[in-house]
């Protein structure tokens, strides 16, 4: 058990608001890396206070993409919320719909057939890999190299093709259903998946070789923006950013949901806590996801073609409360459902991992040079859909 201290100080507003425009000091300036920014990967502002070349303070401003998701969910029947959950985080859509279906199934008290669980695992891991590949592409552009952007997107196309073969859509797939999944896998799906994973591991090694063998890349990432384990725990950072700081916790292994306890995989954890560690954790996670996919596909084959993949569920959910957690590509996401016996939820609350990770941007960015700020922010993989909801 970690002994935690209070290391969070209060946010202070820009100096001209605090001490008045006439007394405002002139050697430190606030730069607004504003909502209209070529490389901010989503609609948010990061105000940084710069003293010469070093950042001394930061303040993230979010809320530009707020769509009233939770309120909208109160007005829709349960199955109609599934496409909405897709659009919570548009690059990791399968995990959010899986989370939502798990929450409603828990409220209903039903157990999903085994085949559906394994198919959901495969779909989740495909989603994780393609989300990490989009992150890798974004890291390339932030560091100033367009080649990694195009190579990452090229690799991602193969995984999106797998999504098409599974359910017909590339990104916001609308695939899991309350009680299972929408359709069974095809006969040749396992062949396609195996081909894709073999090809992918070789291609990813090419990209990583290019990055690791060049001291320019490594010097842009190593030693920059360290976070300690205690800071991570205090700030509530989860996901690969937390595992890069030495906290050894992954929901799939330590609090397994949906048959992950039958899958054997490793969780990458590094202790340095700098940008390079967070980068390496995500790369290693992609390799581990390939391993998980292979094992899950074998289990699906073992269950055979005629195993059930979907249950019929009642449309009214009995009154009660349910919550479920899931390991999203960006961290730990959670949904909390309060139902009242009708066919629409009374309250549906989403905890997005990036909401807390972005609030941790202030200690991450303090003490770093201005030119490194995009690189640091790229490593926590911002996707504003889930942050703003």
């Amino acid at each position, binding site marked *: 058990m970690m002994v935690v201290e209070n290391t969070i100080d209060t946010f202070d507003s820009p100096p001209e608001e605090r001490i008045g425009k006439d007394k405002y000091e002139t050697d430190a300036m606030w*730069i607004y890396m504003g909502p209209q920014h070529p490389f901010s990967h989503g609609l948010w502002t990061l105000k940084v206070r710069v003293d010469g070349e070093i950042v001394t303070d930061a303040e993230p401003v979010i809320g530009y993409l707020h769509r009233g998701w939770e309120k909208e969910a109160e007005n829709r029947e349960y199955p109609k919320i599934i496409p909405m959950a897709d659009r919570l985080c548009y690059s990791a859509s399968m995990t959010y719909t899986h989370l939502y279906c798990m929450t409603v199934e828990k409220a209903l008290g039903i157990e999903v057939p085994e085949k559906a669980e394994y198919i959901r695992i495969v779909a989740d891991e495909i989603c994780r890999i393609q989300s990490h590949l989009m992150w890798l592409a974004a890291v390339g552009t932030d560091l100033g*190299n367009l080649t990694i952007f*195009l*190579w990452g997107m090229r690799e991602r196309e193969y995984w999106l093709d797998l999504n098409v073969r599974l359910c017909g859509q590339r990104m916001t797939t609308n695939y899991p259903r309350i009680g299972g999944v929408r359709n069974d896998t095809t006969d040749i799906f396992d062949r396609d998946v195996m081909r894709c994973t073999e090809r992918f591991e070789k291609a990813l090694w090419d990209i990583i070789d290019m990055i690791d063998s060049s001291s*320019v890349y490594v*010097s842009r990432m190593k030693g920059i923006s360290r976070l300690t384990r205690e800071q991570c725990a205090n700030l509530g950072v989860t996901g690969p950013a937390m595992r890069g700081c030495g906290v050894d916790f992954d929901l799939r292994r330590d609090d397994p949901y949906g048959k992950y306890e039958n899958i054997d995989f490793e969780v990458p954890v590094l202790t340095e806590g700098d940008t390079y560690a967070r980068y390496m954790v995500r790369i290693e996670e992609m390799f581990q996801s390939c391993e998980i996919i292979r094992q899950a596909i074998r289990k699906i084959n073992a269950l055979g073609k005629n195993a059930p993949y979907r249950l019929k569920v009642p449309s009214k959910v009995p009154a009660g409360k349910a919550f479920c957690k899931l390991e999203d590509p960006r961290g730990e996401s959670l949904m909390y459902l309060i139902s009242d016996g009708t066919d629409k939820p009374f309250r549906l609350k989403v905890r997005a991992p990036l909401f807390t990770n972005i609030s941790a941007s202030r200690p991450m960015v303090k003490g770093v040079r201005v*030119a490194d700020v995009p690189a640091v922010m790229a490593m926590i993989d911002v996707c504003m859909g889930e942050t703003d909801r």
Partner: protein
Amino acid sequence: MSNPYYPYDTYNVVYDIGFEVYQFLGGIVAWLIDLLLPGNPVSEWLISDAVVNAFAIIILALLIFIVIFVGVLISLWEERKVLGRFMDRRGTMIGMKGFMQCVADGLKTFMKENTLPKKIDKMTYMWTVSLIIGTSVLVACMLPLSDRFYIVNFDSGLLIVMALYALAPFFILVSGWSQNNKYSLIGGMRAAESMISYEIPMLIIVCSVAVLSGTFNIGGIVAAQNESMWYIIPLFVGFIVFFTCSCAEAERSPFDLAEAEAELVEGWQTEYAGMKWGLIMLGDYLRGFASCAMISIMFLGGWNIAPFASDAVNGFLPELVQLLKGWFIFFIMIWVRVALPRVRIDQILNLGWKVFMPLSVINLAIAVLLKVGGVF
């Protein structure tokens, strides 16, 4: 062929062409005027020696500018296609294999609105842009493409080229200031400081090449390499350092702070819109082309195909050989851009002062030792 006003010592094919063209056109005009008013002094003056020489020089300058301009457009096209292929895509495809796309982009930039922000310092804003582009064009056109394709043939040719090349950082600094924008000022200062700190190793390496060849004259350097060997072999360290410093001077990735600072702090080019920006970009490519031409002259033997080849082989289209060598070096610069991310400003300055300057001094020492030891 030559008249008493002929300004050069050696044969200059572009002067020839200019001479012939003016004699033809000026002759027609003089003959027409003579038809109307027989025996008038204007016709006499139009085909007199001094006037023919003057116009031949003007046409020479124009021709050389056109040839270099097309060469720079070809290197722009090369960059887009090669960049595309490295990134597993095809690059521009419109026009003759994508070449017309560059011309189309230039025409499009012509039609954009030339905005003029309100509170700038107008005179420095206008003048610095013209001077940056002007010096870039001057440097690119002062490098001869062969023994017979040149504008001037200075005895201190390479030194003058380097001096003109080094004027641009000052204008960048002033133009960053003139835009009345604290971010542009910072961007201008950063671009200027990185360019200035990379010029010193370049100058020391130019000195080492001059030590080995005995002259700063560009024709002389190429002839000296033709007798012994290409200077990339003894001065390999100098080649690598000069190559990297040219990437930094031409503000190419991995040293492209001026364009990249737009992501955090705006660069010095932000308030320039329309054709001014287009010409700044062209100036960037002109400087890249000029440094590639310099590398090919100093290290790769210039316009001779090989030192052991006979004179007849070396004399066949030397201009094309020089251009091809320049484009090959540019290909390596594109390769460097593709593979590496941006270097941070403090890392750039570290490299320039702490790594490249000692290496260039070592290079100079090697050159002096070789010369004193009688090898060259």
